[in-house]
């Protein structure tokens, strides 16, 4: 055994409700990204590549898929004799039982886990961003600036800064002020939700503020620490970082991967992204198929035409099917002649023969205008779309649907069929 200098706590309990039907059955960190990956693979791979080999993953919303994915952590080399990955769900105590009610509350409820390792530093991560980051470099910055807490920040366009928690810092990175979603931001340094704490400082703060309802790092812990004189610093992160919190940004981030030299390059040898790969065969492209500007996962068989798309593993694309500007996750089946433009199909979706997805003109969503505000057809996990129907833009489908549910064989733009919402 060797003492851990820094351990990571990865917050993976959120639903990510703005991803609509994509997260109807699984937590956002378990949503597929870039063909074969899941969103949580990025922070987990960053951890092992940065030399952080002890990671607690806090789960709450729909954890089954996440648990299956993480297992004992073998894909990320996090199956360790001491340390490694550990899934931490909420639990019952002798006197009460409560869910994780906020980011800091969730960490507080796992004080015991951190005390067991008694590290020098604790790294707090969230499981819903796409980026490559060396946490060790951030730790070096944290140490050299003698901070109590370091917040990773990302420079966003000033007009977008009002969507984020913003920090105002001097040239050395010492933070003088925080603004949570300010109307008139005075800085464009947005907090990425990544923190390094001195363990003793974090422990004391969590205990002191344990009774704050929905205790949150950005809203409660860090402002309180700043107020009582702890040194807070901002670590300016310069690489690629993408929040994939909405369907629009999720689609865009996927599409960026197919650029000739994408800004976020998965093909670099020295910072590999690991994922749980089933032992799958190579992909097969049949005579008569065309594939352009796309990435395609293992085991996929293409008989149709694919352009500008991200295709996962073990997908079947039938003859004369036309896939454009779409994201298709693992194990989906697209039957002969199906045509789609700007569709997101979750894992195991089945699209019938000659189906057309993404027809007609854009219309505002009648189902949930907050979530569905893009040109996209979004189809939830294991949904079935029957043969010969048409589906408009800005639509959502969840569940095994039949022809009768498509009036005149058409689901008009802005509409949705949600069959398992309440169960």
């Amino acid at each position, binding site marked *: 055994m060797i003492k851990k200098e820094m351990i990571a706590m990865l917050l993976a309990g959120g639903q990510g409700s703005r991803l609509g039907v994509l997260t109807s059955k699984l937590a956002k960190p378990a949503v597929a990204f*870039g*063909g*074969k990956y899941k969103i949580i693979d990025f922070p987990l791979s960053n951890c092992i590549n940065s030399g952080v080999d002890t990671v607690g993953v806090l789960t709450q919303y729909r954890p089954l898929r996440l648990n299956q994915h993480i297992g004992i952590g*073998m*894909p990320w080399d996090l199956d360790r004799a001491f340390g490694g990955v550990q899934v931490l769900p909420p639990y019952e105590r002798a006197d009460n039982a409560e869910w994780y009610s906020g980011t800091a509350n969730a960490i507080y409820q796992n004080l015991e886990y951190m005390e067991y390792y008694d590290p020098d530093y604790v790294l707090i991560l969230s499981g819903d961003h796409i980026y490559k980051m060396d946490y060790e470099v951030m730790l070096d910055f944290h140490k050299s600036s003698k901070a109590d807490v370091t917040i990773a920040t990302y420079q966003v366009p000033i007009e977008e800064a009002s969507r984020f928690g913003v920090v105002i810092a001097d040239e050395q990175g010492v933070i003088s002020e925080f603004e949570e979603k300010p109307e008139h931001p005075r800085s464009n340094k947005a907090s990425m939700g990544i923190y390094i704490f001195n363990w003793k400082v974090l422990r004391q703060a969590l205990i002191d503020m344990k009774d704050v309802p929905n205790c949150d790092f950005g809203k409660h812990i860090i402002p309180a620490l700043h107020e009582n004189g702890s040194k807070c610093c901002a670590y300016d992160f310069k690489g690629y970082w993408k929040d994939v919190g909405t369907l629009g940004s999720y689609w865009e981030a996927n599409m960026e991967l*197919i650029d*000739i030299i994408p800004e976020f390059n*998965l*093909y*670099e*040898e*020295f910072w*590999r*992204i*690991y*994922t749980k*790969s089933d*032992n799958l*065969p*190579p*992909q*097969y*492209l*049949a*005579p*008569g*198929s*065309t*594939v*352009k*500007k*796309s*990435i*395609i*996962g*293992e*085991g996929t068989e293409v008989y149709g035409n*694919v352009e500008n798309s*991200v*295709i996962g*593993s073990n997908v079947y694309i039938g003859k004369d099917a036309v896939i454009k500007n779409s994201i298709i996750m693992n194990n989906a089946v697209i039957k002969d002649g199906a045509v789609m433009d700007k569709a997101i199909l979750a894992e195991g979706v089945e699209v019938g023969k000659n189906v057309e997805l993404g027809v007609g003109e854009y219309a505002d969503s009648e189902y949930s205008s907050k979530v569905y505000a893009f040109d996209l057809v979004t189809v939830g996990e294991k949904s079935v779309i029957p043969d010969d129907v048409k589906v408009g833009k800005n639509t959502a489908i969840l569940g095994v649907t039949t022809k009768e549910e498509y009036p005149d064989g058409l689901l008009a733009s802005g509409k949705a069929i949600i069959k398992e919402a309440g169960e």
Partner: protein
Amino acid sequence: MRAIGIILAGGNSQRMGDLSAKRAVAAMPMAGCYRAIDFALSSMSNSHIQKVAVFTQYNSRSLNEHLNSSKWWDFGRKQGGLYIFTPTITATNSYWYKGTADSLYQNIDFLKNAHEPYVVIASGDGVYKLDYNKVLEDHIAKNADITIVTKDIKPGEDDISRFGVVKVGDKGRVLDFEEKPLVAETNTASIGVYVVRRRQLIELLETCAAEGRTDFVKDILIRYKNVKKINAYKLETYWRNIGSVESYYRTNMDFLNPEVRNFFFHQQPGVYTKVEDLPPAKYNSDAVAVNSLIASGSIINGTVENSVLFKKVYVGNNTVIKNSIIMNDVHIGDNCYIENCIVESRDTIKANTTHTGEAGKPKIVIEKNFRYTL
């Protein structure tokens, strides 16, 4: 499972030409992302054989690298495991493995210390799926001393005189066995998979060694064919040996056939291999790829037709690849033309290069040029 597994992967094959300069036949890359030995290892794992030893000797670095962990085939259990046995110098022996029987004899302690009553011996250069339990059941039902698995080779599939040729009588009894005959009497080949009772094998090996004999086929199977009851189990499903350049090329090309792909890739149980965590394959805007197998980590800019591309292959702009096998980590520059070739792994082919082989007689391309890497 009541058997331990042994995979004989020590051999070299003259017929592999320059391809075997780099690795043992059992380590030859197969079907885009596998190596030849994966088929025997996966069949052992799927037959619930828990203790498997791989005997290596010739050029075994690639093979040892591939077998760096037993977890890929699910052998890393508390009971059993995956063992790699290379020849070692001992107080009584300082020779390499002098033959297949000698390699078994040099590791006789492994056989003696096992408690499983049977031994399954397989070669590392066959491409097939087989439930060894079925062979064992047949072995027990027929009350055999040794069971050998056979396959009827159809004309055009392979050259029968490369194999041990078997004449099978009533109820599967082996009447005659000829190793690599000039003129084969039948079209039934031994595929190099044997089932034998462990104590029987130990006894045979000890006698064999005492007489200074070293070859399993010649000195045990053929020598004892009238004394011991040798039983043939006929394999009806796909089997190919990849021990010659032509058969290696043909077997890889077989995977472009939907029936073969379906048998190996989609029917349970699966074939397993070392997972390498490569990103998905990428097709840029002028890419054309038809009737081809393409493994992950590849980037395609040009045209690929009727070919098998292994992992991490880069195909440059305006490059055309036809009827070829491109092994792992090959970089092919712009404006190249490659037809009927087998391109050796880690090659770097400069822009504007042409390589063409003859149909059915592929050209082996080995080009170790400098490659700029980050």
